[in-house]
Structures are given as C-alpha cells and as structure tokens.
C-alpha cells in the first residue's frame, strides 16, 4: 500500500514536471522557431513567461529522481544502468537548456550574442524532452531485461526502438502545445496572441497522428502498454483524454484561452495517467514491479511523511511565487 502511495506521488511529480517544466521546454522550442514580423516580441514574451520560475519548475525532475532512488532503489539502479546513454544525453540537454537561458539573460544585450544563446537554448529545449520521452518509452518496451538483479540486455535495449522515438516526438509536441496555450494567456497584445494561438492549434493537431503512431508501434514495440490500453477501462480513459484535447482545440479556436489552458493541462495529465495505468504494476516492463522494487516500509513511511510536510510547505509558497510573478508582468 505504502509503495503505491509513493508511486502515485512519483506520477504526480511527473505530471507537475510535464505541465510546468515541460511547458518551459516548449517555450524554448517556440523561441527557436520564432518567425514572422513579431519575432522579437514572441521571444520576449517567452522569456518573460519562463523568467525566474523555471528553476522551481525544474526541481520536479530532481524530486522524481530522488523519489525513485529512495523508494525504489533497485529500479533506479537498473534504469540508470540500462539507459546510461539516453540519461547522459538528457543531462547534457538539461545543462545547456538551463545555463543558456540564464546566460542569455545576463550576457550582453547585443543582438548576435543574444541570438547565439537563443539558438543553444532552443536546440536544448527540443533535445531534452525528446530524450525524456524516449526514456519513458524505453521503460515500457519490455526489452530491458533483468536477471538476478543485473541488467542482462546491455546498453542499447529499448530506447532505440520506433516506439521510443514515437514517445519522444509525442513529448515534443505535448510540450510545444502546452507552452503555446499558456502563452496565449500571458500576452496582452492581440496580434501576438494570434501568433501563439496559431502555434497552439498546429501543435495540438499534430498530437493526434503522433499518438496514433505511438499506439500502432506499441502493438509490437511495447506489447504490455498495448495490452493495457485495450482493457475495459482504457476505452473511457482514451475517450476522456481525446475529449479534453478536442475541447482544448475548440476553446483555442473560439479564443477561450483560460478554458484551453485547463483542458490542455488535463490532456497532458490524462496521457501520463493512462500510460502509467497501462504499465501498472511495472516500473520497468516486464521484470521490475512497484512492489518488488520497493524499499523497506520504514523508508517509505518516513518518505511519505516528508512528502506531506514538504507539500504543505511548498504548494502555498509555489502559489505565492506564481502570483507575484504574474502580477509583475
């Protein structure tokens, strides 16, 4: 029971990371793709939206890794061994995304200097969520095998499959979609709003074929997920997820941006919930389950207490930060 609560906290952190940190990555993508007559205005709007809150959003990733190694140490050891290469690539992406953003802010305002950092920031913003999507995909493929507690399938298993790539592209499109939707609310200028609305619609529509491709690849590439998604509960869940996505697109069309934000967050959350439900009870398909990898009860209990106390402290502070930050704009 305890391990399920921690697993739920892990999923919740992943959702928070996706809808905050993921959206910051999406912002970086739109920064790189900024075009048209209002190119600089787009970039400024993105920089203002990410501003000094991206570090707080980024901490969810640290929380995820810490929860994983405290509560599920053997799953952590296996994951980090089998996926050494994509995790190292992700770290390089994380370094350049974070540092290029802050360096751009504090370096010379000269155009070519700013442009250089923008390119690095944008490229890393594409790269990082793509690799993160691949990693999540790889864990579901069932190709990472463990025997006697050691990884038996080497360092290339799982993450170089079409399914993992499809997951990477899905993560990209999702981050871009969330970012563009948030930006429609953050900007006051009508034309700028239209730019981001157009981008939100494009990336939102792109989600559908990518999701379909991932589903088709899952049949052979991640049979456990495919099997899970054909369960009785999967039809209403998939229906709800697609429904949210459609409502988000329709709200964008009718310029109901607040509704679009709520439904796009719901879409992202439901995707992650559906994926984890399909993969349940595995952390690494098919050899490591939540139950088998769990740390002793005392660790889980203390961790849960720490999570509750930390949450009670953090959420009001986080809310305060967002309020201060938004009223500053």
């Amino acid at each position, binding site marked *: 029971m305890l391990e399920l609560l921690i697993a739920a906290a892990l999923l919740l952190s992943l959702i928070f990371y996706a809808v905050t940190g993921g959206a910051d990555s999406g912002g970086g993508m739109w920064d790189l793709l900024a075009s048209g007559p209002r190119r600089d205005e787009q970039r400024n709007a993105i920089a203002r939206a990410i501003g000094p809150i991206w570090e707080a959003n980024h901490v969810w990733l*640290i929380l995820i890794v810490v929860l994983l190694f*405290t509560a599920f140490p053997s799953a*952590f*050891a296996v994951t980090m061994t089998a996926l050494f290469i994509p995790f190292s690539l992700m770290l390089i992406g994380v370094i350049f995304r974070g540092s290029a953003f*802050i360096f751009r802010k504090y370096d010379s305002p000269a155009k070519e200097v700013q442009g250089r950092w923008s390119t690095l920031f944008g490229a890393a913003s594409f790269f990082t969520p793509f690799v993160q999507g691949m990693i999540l995909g790889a864990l579901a493929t069932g190709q990472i095998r463990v025997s006697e507690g050691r990884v038996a399938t080497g360092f290339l298993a799982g993450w170089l499959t079409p399914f993992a790539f499809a997951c990477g592209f899905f993560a990209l499109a999702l981050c871009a979609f969330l970012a563009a939707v948030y930006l429609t609310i953050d900007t006051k200028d009508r034309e700028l709003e239209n730019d981001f609305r157009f981008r939100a619609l494009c990336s939102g529509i792109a989600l559908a074929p990518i999701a379909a491709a991932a589903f088709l690849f899952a049949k052979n590439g991640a049979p456990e997920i495919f099997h899970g998604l054909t369960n009785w509960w999967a039809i209403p869940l998939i229906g709800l997820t697609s429904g949210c996505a459609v409502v988000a697109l329709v709200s964008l069309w009718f310029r109901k941006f607040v509704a679009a934000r709520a439904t796009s967050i719901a879409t992202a959350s439901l995707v992650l919930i559906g994926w984890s439900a399909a993969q349940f009870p595995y952390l690494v398909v098919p050899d490591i389950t939540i139950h088998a990898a769990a740390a002793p009860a005392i660790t889980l209990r*203390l*961790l849960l207490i720490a999570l509750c106390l930390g949450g009670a402290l953090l959420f009001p502070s986080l809310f*305060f930060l967002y309020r*201060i930050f938004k009223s500053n704009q």
Partner: protein
Amino acid sequence: MSDFLFARSLMGMSLAFHIIFAAIGVALPLLMVTAEGVYLRTGKPIYLELARRWSRGSAILFAVGAVSGTVLSFELGLLWPTFMEKAGAIIGMPFSLEGFAFFAEAIFLGVYLSGWKLLSPFVHWLSGVLVVIGGVSSAIFVVTANAWMNAPAGFKIVDGKITDIDPIAAMLNQASFHQVIHMVLSAFIATGFAVAAVHAFFLLRKKDDAFHRAALGIALVVGCVCVPLQIWSGDLSGREVGRLQPAKLAAMEAAYRTQNGAPLVVGGIPNDDAQTIKYAITLPRFLSLLAKRDPNATIAGLDQVPRSDWPNVRLVHWSFDVMASSGFALFFLSLTVALLAWKRRSLPDDRWLLRVLVAAGPLGFIAMEAGWMVTELGRQPWIIYGIMRTNEAVTPMPGLAVPFIIFTCVYLFLAFMVAYLLRREFFRAPAPGERQTTTASTRA
C-alpha cells in the same frame, strides 16, 4: 585509464565544479540579505544597489548550481548503480529533504528576484532570508548523506543482506555534525574572501569608491567571523576522523607506523613502499596532542590497515596540507583585518592590505577543494566505509572516457561563462548616474 578510474574522475570532476557553484549559491544570498538589511536600517541607497548586484550573481550561480546538482543526482545512479541500490533506501531521506529545501530556495529566489517592486521592503527582505535558509538547509542535508558514507549507520548486515534500516539514525550518523559545520562555514569563508578580493581590487584603483567600500565591508565581516569558527570545527573534524576513520587520519599525516606521541607531519614526499616520508617538517607530539588531547597518546598508523585498504597517501596528505595551510593563512589575515578595524573603528584600506586580500581571494576555494579531496580520497578504497568497495559499486557501462571528456568540456564551458558573467556584474562599478536611476526606479 580503466573505466573504473574514469568513473571516479567523472564523479570527482562533477563534484569539484558543483561544490564551487553550490557554495557561492549558498553564501552569496547571505551577503545579499545582509546588504539589503543594512539598507533597510540605514536607508543608504548604495546598499540597495549592492543587494541588487549580489541578487543577480545569486541568480546566475543558483541556475548553474541547479543544473550541475541535477547532473550529480543522476550520476549517483549512472556511475554507482550498485551503491545506490544498497544505499538508496538508507540515505534517500536526506536527499528527499534536500530536494524540498532546494525547492524552497528556488521558489523564494524567484520571489526575491521578481518582487522588488511588489513586496513591502520587509517581506522582500524576508524572502531573501528564506533563500539563505533554503540554501543552507540543502547543504546540510546533502552533506549528511556524504557523512553516512564515512560513518555508515542505521542498518544491520545479516548474511550479507542489509536489514533493520533506520533512515533517521543514518542521517544522524557520527560524521554528520562535524562535516556539516565544516562545509557550511567553508562556503561562507570561500565566498566572503573571493568577493572581498574583487572589491579590494577595485579599491586599489579608486580608493574612495563608496560602493566597493560597502561591499568589501560586508564580505569581510562574513569571512572574518567564520574563519575562527572554522579553525575550531577543523580541530573537531580531525579528532572525529581519528576516531571514526583511523586510516584516513593516518593518510592525512602520512603516519605509516603506529606511534605514541605521534608528530604532526607537514609537507614532504610520502613513500608507500619504504613507508617513510622525506623532506617533511615534523612537529613532535603535535598529532597526538591535537587528535587525542594528550601529547603521549597512541595514534594508529597505516600499519594497522591492510595494504589493500590504504587510500592514496600522497594525495590525501598533500591535500590536507593545502587545506590546512590555506585555512591558517586566512585565519591570520582575518586576525589582521579584525585588529586593524577594531583599532581604527573603520574599514581598513591600506594598499598593502588590499593587495593581500586580492591575493587571498582564491584561498577559501582552494581550501574547500582540497578538503573535499581529503574526505573523498581518504575514504577510498571504500564507497561505504568498511562496507562496500568503490569498485564493487561501479556501472558495467564501457567507454566511460567519452562521457568524462564531454562533461569535462561542458563544465569548463560553464565555469568560464559564470566567471565571465560575474565579471560583468561585479567588475563594473556603477556610474553615479546609473546608481541614481536604479534607486529612483525602485522607489517609484
């Protein structure tokens, strides 16, 4: 070089960079809130400008520290999966708490940076204080996890399996207290003297610049108050290391033989095969006196430890000497500064003193890095002292030279950029006009 050695080098290199970023990230906010506090009390706009300057420095260091810290938390598993598999459940607790402390730091730094105009001056200052508390707490938590590797506690081993885990006891292991104090103080000292050096450099050019005088004053107060405490905590650490890890103390002092009334050995070239040290300065009975408070006490030498369990004696001994001598140099410098300031009741600004302060700028960081070499190299060949060997914990991943080279280049780039940007922020004294406009805009 073997993959094992590359794994250790990669971890060591990542830590060596992160420790600098993190230490400045912890200590600069203290300078920042001190400056803002002085501004709130005195109303002198120059202190507000200083707080703003240091807040921008904090923002840069915090961001870089956040990414280099992320890298480290992953590298624990990427490079040492077997270690994390066994230790995760035991020492995950301080890492989780560190995560929350870090989160709080991130949130309130965000509030501080964007709240200059929106918050009342006191609430704004308070959010800065929370940044300091968050930073110091995350340093405390993460150091307790490291201390556990030196003094493992909170579990039993029955038939080769770990049982009876007690994460609280693990966190409150016997090495935690002295390691935490020594690390946090060193962050304040290193940052204090480095910042002092920057502003002393400018006062050498322009003696009466009020901005740099104010900055130098705050940095020196922070540095000079912490150094004597650090000498005390260093003495405590030495005694505790002697008690908990006799092999580490023996390597620090290149003490090959067990001796009554052991001497303190400074410098020299230790030779493991001959088990002697050449060209060293020895202070008779001093090691016994320092470590056991008794000039005739017995100090265990490396002869008590199987040769296969020896750390690298040369590196540990030299690192210890570098740390201790840098520390004492700063101690005498602090005494001089304090004495002059007390006699004159003002900031001492003699040219020779400013020159010495500039030269002493890197000493705190040198001592910090050397101290970490002592702790980490002195623990080898163990990753968990007496329990698990480092080479049992390493990843089976081949070709670790590649990530080592890539990450080294990335870190060098980060360090270069941070130095360059801090130079932009700090090396530029505001022109009088600029100072006027910034203060005017904040008051508006």
